């Protein structure tokens, strides 16, 4: 009798009474006793049910189902706030040092320590479970895995387990309906962002490589040809004579940009330069101005500089043709200047923009991951220090 449940029978009782059988009709397990579910591709039967709670100021209550298979032994299916963990006895003793525990090469972080008592019990156990029985329960996590140590005066029991999705539990037992809603983040619930991190990183890296390759392609096929090199000298006394008009020059190839570099001899001064790039055939002009200013000095903090004596402008989408450049400086002091126009220059700005955009989803994911971890650790003993969570029950 009772060959299928692992119950202990009392030899001293002639009726071979079950010593570990406790009937408690008040306790209704979420998954009925006797139900069979498939785990590790083997059938396990629910033979026992425990309601346990922490002893102390803050009372947490959770539920444990004892699963049994005659050759694979026992498993615990633990449910807290809709989060499920499947645990089994650990054959070895993990090593604990400080706030971490190590088992089979995996490092776990301490999550919580509490004295737990049995609040209610139903079904059958391989040992007699008594209501009110207390053990010191310590949990370490390495999501989705968890380590648990339970100690009393006679024994230390280690279990190792893994987070199970509620839907997977329901499917394993073929239960109708849906599992209870999850509340918060489970202690060993895997971060939905952690697993995807690598994949996203690879994808982003691919895009970045593509962007860099595209940029290099632009560099290879760009002309980067000096179209004009013009110098002049500005005298504030004769501002009208300051305007310089270049000889006609050719901007060739496809419609592309033109880079204008202006360098000056300004020092502790400024010069404002009006430019006009005029199409010699159509007369269409692009006018723009640049202020070049450069100041330097020395004060109590040491030497300082502000601005620079040169500037650079990109003119996008300039069609091929013959052009003139008009340079018209104005300013308080005499200044010598030089202007160079370079046709078809690849702009690394686009590359930086692209790379910046590419890192945005990674940053967003990282932030979401940190927030998820914060919610996890807010439920732990270390909510103040390691997670940045809101509650503090240290």
């Amino acid at each position, binding site marked *: 009798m009772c*060959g299928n449940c692992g119950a202990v029978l009392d030899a001293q009782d002639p009726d071979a009474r079950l010593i570990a059988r406790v009937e408690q009709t008040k306790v209704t397990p979420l998954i009925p006793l006797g139900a069979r579910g498939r785990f590790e591709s083997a059938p396990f039967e629910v033979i026992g049910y425990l309601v346990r709670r922490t002893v102390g100021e803050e009372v947490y209550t959770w539920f444990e189902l004892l699963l049994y298979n005659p050759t694979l032994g026992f498993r615990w299916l633990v449910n807290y706030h809709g989060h499920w963990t499947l645990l089994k006895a650990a*054959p*070895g003793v993990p090593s604990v040092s400080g706030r971490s525990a190590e088992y089979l090469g995996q490092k776990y972080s301490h999550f919580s320590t509490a004295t737990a008592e049995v609040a209610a019990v139903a079904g059958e156990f391989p040992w007699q479970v008594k209501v009110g029985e207390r053990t010191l329960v310590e949990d370490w996590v390495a999501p989705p895995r968890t380590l648990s140590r339970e100690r009393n005066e006679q*024994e230390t029991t280690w279990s190792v387990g893994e987070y199970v999705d509620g839907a997977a539990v329901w499917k394993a037992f073929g239960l109708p309906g849906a599992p209870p809603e999850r509340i918060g983040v489970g202690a060993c619930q895997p971060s939905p962002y952690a697993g995807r991190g690598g994949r996203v990183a690879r994808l982003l890296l691919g895009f970045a490589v593509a962007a860099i390759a595209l940029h290099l392609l632009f560099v290879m096929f760009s002309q980067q040809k000096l179209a004009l090199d013009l110098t002049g000298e500005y005298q504030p006394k004769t501002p009208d004579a300051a305007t310089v008009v270049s000889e006609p020059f050719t901007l060739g190839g496809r419609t592309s940009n033109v880079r204008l570099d202006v360098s000056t001899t300004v020092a502790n001064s400024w010069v404002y330069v009006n430019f006009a790039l005029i199409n010699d055939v159509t007369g269409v002009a692009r006018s723009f101005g640049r202020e070049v200013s450069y100041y330097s000095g020395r004060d109590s903090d040491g030497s300082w500089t502000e601005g620079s004596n040169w500037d650079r402008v990109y003119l996008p989408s300039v069609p091929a043709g013959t052009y003139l450049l008009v340079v018209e400086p104005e300013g308080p002091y005499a200044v010598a200047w030089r202007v160079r126009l370079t046709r078809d220059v690849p702009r690394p700005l686009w590359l930086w923009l692209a790379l910046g955009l590419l890192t945005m989803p990674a940053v967003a994911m990282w932030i979401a991951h940190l927030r998820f971890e914060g919610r996890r650790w807010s439920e732990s003993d270390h909510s103040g220090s390691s997670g940045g969570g809101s509650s503090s029950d240290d």
Partner: protein
Amino acid sequence: MVIKEVSCPSCGGPVKFTAAQSILAVCSYCRATLIRRDVDVEQIGTMAALIEDASPLQLGAEGVWRHTHFAVVGRLQVRWEQGGWNEWYCVFDDGRAGWLGEASGEYSISFEGTVPEPLPRWEALRPGLRVTLGGVGYEVTDVRRATVVGGEGELPFRVGSGWPTAAADLRNDTARFATLDYSDDAPKVYLGEMVEFPALALRGLRELEGWR
């Protein structure tokens, strides 16, 4: 492999001594407890019936551990106030005889041995205590006084129903396993490892109702 087969002095049924190390056998027909002598056996009592439990193991089961075939030839059943466990006596093809421990669905294989280190006193044992045995570090995981329910098949020592036991189990991080048995005057040391039941490739298991 059968070393000796005798007739039970009580009922005349056949009783086997498979292991050279076995000194006690329980008649499977009348539960007479027999002690092996040079040429014959002597009945020293009758073993109480064992508690029916859910163990998938039974006498005659065979398995493999570390590439060595073994047969289950005896069993010692022990209980404490809230539970119990089995020690299955096994004969290995290399001539050794050891124990397949079965407690709450966890299994271990161990052999009696000796260690150079002095053993801790029984009173000093508590879960969490670190003990070095044969140069290997262990941690005490279980300290328990219990009572022998009874035995069946062959056993390597004298034992009877109701005999008290006092033993501690130890494990380490690589699932090595040891038992320190203080039931007799001189403590005994058993060394081995925790094993996964499926890894033992057991045959001849008990048919459990409702499970294939």
